[in-house]
C-alpha cells in the first residue's frame, strides 16, 4: 500500500522536475504509517475558469499532506464514483458502498481583483452531515498555504488535534564546492518541503537554528568570522543583528516563549555557561556557574524553567534551572548520555538524544517520572524538534551517506524520511503555528 504512495510521490517528483523547476527541496517518504489509517476522499475542487488550469491543485496538496502524515489513506481520483463540488451533488449511497467515511469537496474561484476564494466542506458520509465548512480568501502565492490550512482543519476534525501542515521548517544543508570545500546554507521551507528559501550561505559552518515564537525570525550560529557567533535574522526582510561574538563559544540560542530573550551558551568567562540575553536592552544575565560544560538551554512553555545539558555529574545529562537562576536539578537518569533537550509543546516531556552503548537515539524524557522512552532505532539520531501540535518530532539521522532528515510520531506509529535532492541536510527545527 505504501509502495503505491511512494510511486505516486515519485510521479509527482518527476512532474515537478519537468514543469515547475524544483518548487520543493525535500521529498517526504512514508516508511511507516498507523495500522488503520482513516479513509478520506479529497474530490478535485471545482474551478471557475474551465479554459485554464487552476494555479494550484488544491485537492492534490491536501491529499499529499494527509497521506504523508501516515494517519490517512486517500482514495485515488480514478476510484471515485463521482466528483461532486457541492453538498447537494453528493450521492451518499455510492460513497457508502465503497466504505468511504469522509469526503472533502470544494471550489476554487478567482475574483475580480485577481485573488482567489477557496471554499470547502468536510462531510461525514454515513451521517450525511457537514463536519466543517469554510470559505478562505487567498492569493496566488498563498494558495498552497491555504490548502495546508484545509489539511490542518481536516486533521483537527478527524483526529482531534490541530494539524501542523501550514507550518515551516528550517534546516542546514551542506554541499560541496567545485574545489571540494563545503558550502553551508540555512534554509526555510514549507513543512512539506516546498518553497525552499535560502537565508544564509557560507563556506563556514552554520548551526543551531531556532525559531522565534512568532515564526518571523530565526536565531542561529554562524562561523563566518572564524569563530562561533549568534545572530538573529528576520526571515522576510533578511535583516539581521549580531547577538553575541565574544571570545570563546557563542552558541545554542533558545528563545523565551514571549520572544523577548534568548538563552545562550557563552564561554567568555572561562568555560561554557548558560546566559540570558535580553534582546531589547542587549544585556546579559548569567544563569550557571560551574567548571563543567553547561550548554543547549531551552525554555519551558510557561517560561519559568530552562532545561540544558551539563556534564557536571561526569557525563552529559539534562538539568533544569529556574530562569531567575538557582540550583540546577538533574532530571535525566536513563543511560550514560542525554543531551540536546527540547520541550514538547505542552512541556510534559523533553525530547533528548539518548546515548547507550554507542547508539544515539531520540528519546522522550517524562518530566514527572524521569523515565526515557526511546523512539528511534538508528545508531546516530540527533537534533529533535517537535511539530507545534506535539504529534511529530523531526530529527537528523546519520547513515553511510551522511546526514538526512526523518520524522517520527511521538507514539512511534508513523515514520517518515525527508529526502533532500542532493547534499546533506541536518538540524531541522519545526516552526510555530502561524496566525493568518
Amino acid at each position, binding site marked *: 500500500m505504501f509502495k503505491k504512495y511512494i510511486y505516486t510521490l515519485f510521479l509527482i517528483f518527476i512532474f515537478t522536475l519537468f514543469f515547475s523547476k524544483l518548487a520543493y527541496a525535500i521529498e517526504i517518504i512514508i516508511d511507516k504509517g498507523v495500522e488503520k489509517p482513516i479513509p478520506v476522499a479529497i474530490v478535485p475542487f471545482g474551478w471557475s475558469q474551465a479554459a485554464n488550469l487552476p494555479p494550484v491543485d488544491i485537492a492534490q496538496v491536501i491529499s499529499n499532506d494527509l497521506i504523508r502524515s501516515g494517519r490517512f489513506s486517500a482514495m485515488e481520483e480514478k476510484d471515485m464514483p463521482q466528483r461532486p463540488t457541492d453538498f447537494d451533488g453528493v450521492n451518499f449511497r455510492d460513497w457508502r458502498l465503497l466504505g468511504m467515511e469522509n469526503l472533502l469537496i470544494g471550489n476554487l474561484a478567482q475574483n475580480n481583483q485577481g485573488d482567489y476564494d477557496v471554499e470547502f466542506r468536510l462531510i461525514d458520509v454515513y451521517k450525511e452531515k457537514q463536519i466543517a465548512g469554510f470559505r478562505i480568501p487567498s492569493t496566488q502565492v498563498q494558495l498552497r498555504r491555504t490548502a495546508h490550512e484545509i489539511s490542518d482543519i481536516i486533521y483537527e476534525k478527524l483526529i482531534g488535534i490541530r494539524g501542523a501542515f501550514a507550518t515551516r521548517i528550517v534546516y542546514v544543508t551542506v554541499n560541496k564546492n567545485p574545489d571540494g570545500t563545503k558550502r553551508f546554507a540555512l534554509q526555510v521551507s514549507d513543512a512539506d518541503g516546498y518553497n525552499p528559501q535560502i537565508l544564509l550561505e557560507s563556506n563556514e559552518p552554520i548551526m543551531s537554528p531556532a525559531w522565534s515564537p512568532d515564526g518571523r525570525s530565526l536565531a542561529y550560529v554562524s562561523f563566518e568570522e572564524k569563530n562561533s557567533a549568534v545572530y538573529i535574522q528576520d526571515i522576510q526582510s533578511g535583516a539581521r543583528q549580531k547577538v553575541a561574538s565574544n571570545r570563546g563559544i557563542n552558541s545554542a540560542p533558545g528563545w523565551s516563549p514571549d520572544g523577548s530573550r534568548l538563552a545562550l551558551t557563552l564561554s567568555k568567562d572561562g568555560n561554557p555557561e548558560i546566559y540570558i540575553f535580553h534582546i531589547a536592552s542587549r544585556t546579559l544575565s548569567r544563569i550557571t556557574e560551574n567548571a563543567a560544560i553547561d550548554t543547549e538551554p531551552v525554555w519551558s512553555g510557561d517560561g519559568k524553567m530552562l532545561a540544558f*545539558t551539563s556534564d557536571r555529574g561526569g557525563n552529559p545529562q539534562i538539568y533544569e534551572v529556574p530562569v531567575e537562576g538557582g540550583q540546577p536539578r538533574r532530571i535525566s537518569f536513563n543511560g550514560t548520555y542525554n543531551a540536546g533537550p527540547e520541550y514538547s509543546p505542552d512541556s510534559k516531556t523533553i525530547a533528548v538524544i539518548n546515548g547507550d552503548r554507542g547508539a*544515539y537515539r531520540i528519546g522522550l524524557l517524562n518530566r514527572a517520572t524521569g523515565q526515557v522512552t526511546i523512539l528511534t532505532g538508528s545508531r546516530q539520531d540527533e537534533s529533535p524538534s517537535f511539530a507545534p501540535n506535539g504529534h511529530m518530532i523531526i530529527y537528523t539521522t546519520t547513515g*553511510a551517506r551522511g546526514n538526512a532528515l526523518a520524522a517520527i510520531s511521538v507514539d512511534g506509529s508513523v515514520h517518515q524520511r525527508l529526502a533532500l535532492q542532493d547534499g546533506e541536510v541536518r538540524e531541522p527545527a519545526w516552526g510555530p503555528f502561524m496566525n493568518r
Partner: protein
Amino acid sequence: MSIRVLFFLLLSLTFYGCSSTEEVQDDASVVDQGRTMGEETDSQAYGAGEADRQGMSALDDPNSPLAKRIIYFEYDSSEILPEYRATVEAHAAYLAANQSVVITLEGHADERGSREYNLALGERRAESVSRQMSLLGASGSQFRVVSYGEERPAVDGHDDYAWSQNRRVEIIYR
C-alpha cells in the same frame, strides 16, 4: 625592486637556511630540557623579524617535533594522552622561546551526539592543550582558542576511523 636588493635577499635567505640546520638540533634538546632551552633562546637578542624567520624555518622542518600539529583524543575526553606529550612540550618550548608568536588552537569533536555539546567539548580539548603549554612556559596571550565542534571533520566518514581522526586539536601557526 632592484637587482641589488634581490641579491641581498637571496643572500640572507641562504644565511637563514644555514641557521635552520642548527635549529633542528636545538629543538631536539628543547624536548629533553624543557624550560632551560627556551630561556637560553629567549636571552639571545634577536630582532623580532629575525626570530620569526628563524622560527619559520624550524617550523617548516619535517623532522622537527614541531612538524606534528595535531593532537588526538579519546571519546568524550580532553585528556592529553602520553603519546602526544612530546608534541605539546615541543610547541610549548617554541612558544616560550618566541614570545611574539601567536598560535590558534582549534578544538574538534567527532560527530556522535549533540552538536552543541560537541562544540563545548572541542573547546575543552583546545583549552586543555593551552593549559598544558602555559604550564610549560608559553604565555596565555600566545593562544587563540577556537572550537568548531563536529562542524569541521578532518575525515568525512561515519565509522571508528573517521571519528578517531576527528577528535583532535589542531595547532595552527599563522
